């Protein structure tokens, strides 16, 4: 598996650290109920197919990335900077 970092280009998977589903971008507000925190931290769609997850280009530019992947084929479909994804309306 290789991931194309928007800043660094096509790189080996070993340069990146997986963080988890893109749900982690939707952090509840301070006053959110416990159920919202449970959903944010624990509950997942966990799709077999197209998914969106967060990766950190640890051994590259240190950017946080939103990666569109296929969990069945391991194909990487598209990669964006988290900052770009959030600038276009918050949630990924």
């Amino acid at each position, binding site marked *: 598996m290789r991931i194309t970092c928007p800043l660094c280009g096509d790189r080996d*998977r070993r340069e990146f650290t997986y963080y988890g589903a893109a749900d982690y971008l939707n952090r509840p507000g301070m006053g959110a109920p416990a159920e919202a925190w449970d959903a944010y*931290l*624990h509950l997942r769609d966990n799709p077999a197919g197209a998914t969106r997850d967060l990766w950190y280009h640890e051994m590259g530019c240190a950017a946080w990335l939103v990666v569109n992947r296929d969990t069945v084929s391991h194909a990487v479909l598209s990669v964006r900077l988290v900052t770009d994804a959030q600038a276009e309306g918050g949630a990924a």
Partner: protein
Amino acid sequence: MGADMRYSGLRVIAEGLRGNRGWKPVWREPEPKSEYDMLIIGGGGHGLSTAYYLAKNHGIRNIAVLEKGYLGGGNIGRNTTIVRANYFLPGNQEFYSHSLKLWEGLEAELNYNVMHSQRGLINLFHSDGQRDAFARRGNAMITQGDDAELLDRDGVRALLPYLDFDNTRFPIYGGLLHRRGGTARHDAVAWGYARGADKRGVDLIQNCEVTGIDISAGRVTGVQTTRGAIRAKKVGIVVAGRSSQVAAMAGLRLPIESHILQAFVTEGLKPVIDHVISFGMGHFYISQSDKGGLVFGGDLDFYASYAARGNLPMVEHVMEAGMTLMPMIGRARVLRSWGGIMDMSPDGSPIIDRTPIEGLYIDCGWNYGGFKAVPASGWCMAHLMATDHPHEVARRFRLDRFASGHLLDEEGTGSQHNLH
């Protein structure tokens, strides 16, 4: 046991003399009925043992197991076969202790040779701090009623002289020996439970994929399948590896993320590794199968995946860890590798519980430890479905524990998907 007695040494000899023409199919191939008392979705180890114990312990025989492929074709047929009861946390301890006791009687119970081999499991440690942690774990195991012995360096050397004891990064200080730990023949466990369930009247229905779960007024009423609709009062989801997809049919979102765990087998070698050895600091563990292959694995690839195959960086890492621990295996050739789909829960412990839907139960989240749990998981899931109360040894495997904070974080790393 008498009623189940179909296999014996004498029978093998007699059939050998008669050209093995006397063996009969081990289970029926029934057509699904339109209604059952209970349905188990998933014909793997856990689903089959659930059906077996529903029939055996609770006398509930009007049951079907629905399997989308063939019986035992999932993770029960592909794993590193380790059986142990070396857990630390109350909640896990009593469950795995119960499971190991069931393993110890399983062959007599099922009249099926599951090749359970209590060859001893050794967890290595490499520092004073780790020794303290292992001594504490060993004491917890003994308090639970299981066995543990703390070995010093010479004690490990006496059993495993071929390890590299003076590795610069991870010199071996000793190990925690769990003599009752060992291995078993993985698919024989599925077949043994399948035969026992079939014999008690359970319909084992293969090539029958569940495509929908019928719910009316908050209560389950049956399922839709590729072989037609089937009504039932109670339905159990026992499909680790596909839990999120099946639960979604009932509108549930689970605290599960599916990850890939790779394992490897070498060509057959003469007996060389007598135990199960775990090298936690290198994320490596190994045993030798009765056919002679070295069976070994490592850690997760660490990204969500349903590919059932891993990537090369983890292959390289596992091989490096193996060479670090026991350079003697460097000339062995790897025959094959595979990647299993693991139901990873946020705290690394499983779930056996009711769901918010009346009559719908779930058994999932086995992380990378489902094989040894097969007997007790079925035992406890059957108890739950039959009585609507959690079994004593599985009462902490709650679905809502992540929301309530009653976690079972055996590794002590936290309760988030990226931490296990």
